[in-house]
């Protein structure tokens, strides 16, 4: 195990030395043949869903995990993205490549609206406010004929580049996967920069963050808008995927709980954790779909269990491993330095 970790970190460093973006290119190449390994079309469909869920969970992780804002309205943003894209495509015949940025822009604005209550509300109160928002969006969709009401909105055209149309799951994978990689890369780049640090500072202690020069309101808003960009992207990708059909059932509180489970199980405030969570939960949800009625109970129990026994999730455990390793390494380095200094002093004396 140790040797394997060492080897993989070493090869990762080697890739980074060639170019900072090299690891991302390598993972792109590695992910290319994945659908060929799938046994049937359904598994390829699952791959697509996993990619979309990764984008969604990464977005939620930004606002919830990194900025510490307890939002339950993420699924509504996802719905807004999906329906904006869907309506533009179905009612106005706009091609995917214009629907996508429009959906992202609209969702970003909606994200800003969800973010404003966070200036004054915290914790459970913010959760309630965003839950209200999520429910209103879902109900609005259900009763609005223009949006297909309870029977859903169908006939959303698949995306195309020139004559190449992404009309089945196999082809669609090659659209979703690059978007997923770009989204994950962007979240890494942002969260490991000064912006990410500011998010975490706001999460840890807003007052202390302000005293350190972080404009708390601004960063809360940025976090909400950023997560909304991810939700809009995921929503648009979901809407245009075969069969080009969106239904309010895709955006219920149940979906929100599933999404929360991904982030909590994977590790709040840990990008890899969110990704691992998205993959695991999507697969588990699929394997247990025969027990649909018990699924929510199961998910709820897993969330409670994770929060009680593994508060930082799977990602937290992995993180802990690396942190303790680096700490030991730093300690050894200083000890060695001291030994070397002592030896030098000794030889100087004699």
């Amino acid at each position, binding site marked *: 195990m140790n040797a394997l970790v060492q080897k993989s970190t070493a090869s990762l460093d080697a890739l980074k030395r060639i170019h*900072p*973006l090299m690891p991302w290119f390598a993972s792109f190449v590695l992910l290319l043949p994945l659908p060929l390994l799938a046994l049937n079309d359904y598994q390829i469909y699952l791959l697509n869903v996993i990619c979309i869920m990764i984008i969604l969970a990464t977005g939620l992780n930004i606002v919830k995990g990194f900025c510490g804002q307890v939002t339950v309205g993420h699924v509504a943003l996802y719905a807004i993205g999906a329906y904006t894209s869907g309506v533009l495509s179905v009612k106005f015949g706009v091609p995917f490549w214009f629907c996508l940025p429009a959906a992202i822009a609209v969702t970003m604005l909606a994200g800003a609206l969800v973010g404003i209550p966070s200036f004054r509300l915290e914790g459970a109160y913010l959760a309630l406010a965003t839950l209200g928002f999520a429910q209103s969006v879902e109900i609005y969709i259900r009763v609005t004929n223009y949006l297909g009401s309870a029977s859903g909105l169908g006939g959303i055209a698949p995306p195309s580049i020139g004559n190449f149309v992404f009309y089945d799951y196999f082809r669609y994978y090659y659209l979703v996967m690059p978007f997923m990689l770009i989204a994950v*890369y*962007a979240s890494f*780049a*942002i969260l*490991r*920069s*000064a*912006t990410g*640090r*500011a998010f*975490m*500072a706001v*999460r*840890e*202690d807003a*007052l*202390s*963050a*302000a*005293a*350190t*020069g*972080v*404009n*708390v309101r601004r960063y809360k808003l*940025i976090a909400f808008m*950023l997560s909304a960009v991810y939700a809009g992207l995921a929503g648009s990708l979901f809407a245009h995927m075969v069969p080009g059909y969106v239904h309010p059932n895709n955006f219920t509180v149940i979906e929100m709980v599933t999404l929360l489970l991904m982030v909590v199980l994977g590790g709040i*405030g840990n990008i890899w954790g969110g990704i691992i969570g998205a993959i695991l939960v999507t697969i588990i949800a699929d394997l247990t779909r025969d027990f649909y009625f018990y699924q929510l109970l199961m998910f709820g129990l897993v969330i409670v269990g994770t929060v009680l026994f593994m508060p930082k999730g799977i990602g937290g455990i992995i993180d802990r491993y690396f*942190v303790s390793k*680096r*700490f030991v390494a*730093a*300690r050894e380095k*200083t000890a060695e330095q001291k030994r070397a200094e002592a030896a030098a002093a000794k030889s100087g004396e004699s």
Partner: protein
Amino acid sequence: MTTLLQVDSLCKSFGGLQAIKNVSLEVEDGEIRGLIGPNGSGKSTLFNLISGVYKCDSGSVRFDGADVTNWEPHDIAAKGVARTFQLLRMFTEMTVLENLMIGQHCHVQYGPFAAVFGIGRVAAEEKRLRDEMMELLSFIGLADFAEVPASEMSIGQRRLLALGRGIAMKPKLLMLDEPAAGLSPVNVDNLMSIMVQLKKRYGLTVIVVEHILKVVMDTCERVTVLDHGEKIAEGSPAHVRDDHAVIEAYLGREMDDEEVRAAMAG
């Protein structure tokens, strides 16, 4: 010497309690100023008013040539006022190094978009920041713990780290709220030497609130004493130590032996 901080007849009350009454204060550039007073005398409230955490009822605060009265805390921080908290308020889930790096927030030149697209420039900036903060960590003696979450530090280490976060902000004025509370005697001496070095090394002006009077008496050039929200004395440590009002505020009125005996018997 120019005046860096000028507090003019500041007032603040919480409901019926007047926490700060007409306090005026001038701190010169490069000074180490002590702020003492019994519990509840308004020292922390004064800090909170200067750093913008509380809004004052009346009066004004001028800092470095600008009227910063009732500015938002982050704007005051950007102007060059750093502070530590009595209860520390570290970012416990972040690593020690990150805790310092967040102190540099006002000096970071790029935003989230540059982080995504400007790979080379941002990486260079981050590396510079990281190296600078590692150097600062060795100055405060926590270099070994760079990658450890702040939650795993002892109270003494966290006090040092809070001080480090203040220095990392590259402020003009550093306000320390009880930096020696809970420290062992050896660490108190250590802290005092760091405070004196701060002035030489970073050219900082320091205001320090402290209950351990040794710290204040040995490092500060001038001391301001508060009691019940009012300024009761100001001057050199020796002057303040002998001031009648100060002694009374801390120890109560002096009694002669007869009075003491009477009080104990009664």
